[in-house]
């Protein structure tokens, strides 16, 4: 009984093997884009897959969907950037992220702006360390605790980063020409 509890079911094992075989090259490629070193990229990808293994239930049922691909890429990018920071010892914090935007209603502003793809490009201006927890919460509906476990940061840190993203987005959108 204990053995059954401690090991994955056959279905979960097959799920992981499918995800691993389908996405390993893509994730390695994305990690290499950031780290520019195959050995480090391999380490980052390995770590990313271990985190996926421990959080298999967070994956969509459709393992070939774009959502699944985007989820996995977010994890490997997060791991890669952490490794890059440790390597470069560059952990400065952008104080602009603490700025509070003026009070305005985003949704009403966007209705007046038709070009969705331009809007999405503006989202890319968010730093990965803010964008990833923001997307995991709002697109994948993960809790702070789940995000904390996935990204290996404290729950407090998750809350701070999501808040920073929410504060920064209106500024980015305004600068990108969203009318207020």
């Amino acid at each position, binding site marked *: 009984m204990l053995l059954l509890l*401690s090991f*994955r079911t056959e279905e979960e094992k097959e799920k992981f093997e499918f995800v691993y075989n389908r996405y390993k090259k893509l994730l*390695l490629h994305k990690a290499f884009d950031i780290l520019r070193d195959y050995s480090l990229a391999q380490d980052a990808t390995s770590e990313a897959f271990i985190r996926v293994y421990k959080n298999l239930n967070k994956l969509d049922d459709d393992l070939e969907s774009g*959502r699944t691909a985007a989820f996995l890429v977010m994890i490997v990018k997060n791991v890669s950037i952490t490794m890059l920071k440790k390597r470069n010892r560059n952990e400065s914090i952008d104080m602009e992220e603490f700025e509070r935007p003026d009070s305005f*209603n985003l*949704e009403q502003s966007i209705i007046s702006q038709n070009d969705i*793809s331009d809007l999405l490009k503006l989202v890319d201006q968010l730093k990965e360390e803010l964008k990833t927890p923001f997307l995991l919460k709002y697109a994948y509906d993960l809790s702070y605790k789940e995000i904390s476990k996935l990204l290996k940061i404290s729950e407090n840190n998750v809350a701070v980063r999501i808040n920073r993203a*929410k504060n920064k987005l209106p500024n980015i959108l305004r600068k990108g020409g969203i009318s207020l």
Partner: protein
Amino acid sequence: MKYQDSYQGDNEAFFRSLASLYIEDEGEKLKHELETEYIEIDDIPQQTALYDLDKNVNKAISAVKLRQFVYMAAPVAACFLIALLYISKPAIPNNGTADTFPPLDTTIQSTPTSAPAEITLLSTKLPEGCVVTKTDYDYDKMIYYIRNAQNNNIVLVSEPFTEIPPEENFDQITVNGITAYYMSKKDYKILFVRNNDALYTLSSEFNVQDLVDIASSIV
């Protein structure tokens, strides 16, 4: 209405829509990238990295599984041991074989008299300072609980040899000319060594050298 209230209340739905749209768009781009030849380029460093990735992910998954099993089994094992403390008799040497089983406190000695006859007994003198605090058996396995000179606890299991765990998941070390396989993690260390028809498994929380020292006295 205060700024914070209106900000939090009105825009949560917007953030949800924005994030979902972003992921949908990003996902489609990644699906396209996955299906193009760019990922399939036959590049030697990439192929080497992929090979290493396969090996390392396998190794890491095995370690995660073992750790999960130990965490699951530990409370049950603890309850079992506590129960044994109250109901089992202390281990005594078999009659007429005192010369085969040296004194209790520094050596491995025989099973409790109620153990099945087919259990492989182990008779060896342990490294200096080591004490066998308890012995037990489980089907065809003999279990020895050892405390070494540094007061570190080590568990030794002796059983008939069937198979060694997959070699690629472990590092190797030579003990008295015999290849042993070990894994060293932050909170546990484990070592396997085969001698003739027996497999010895040593585990400890502390360091691999403790396990090697005891293995050296066995093989």
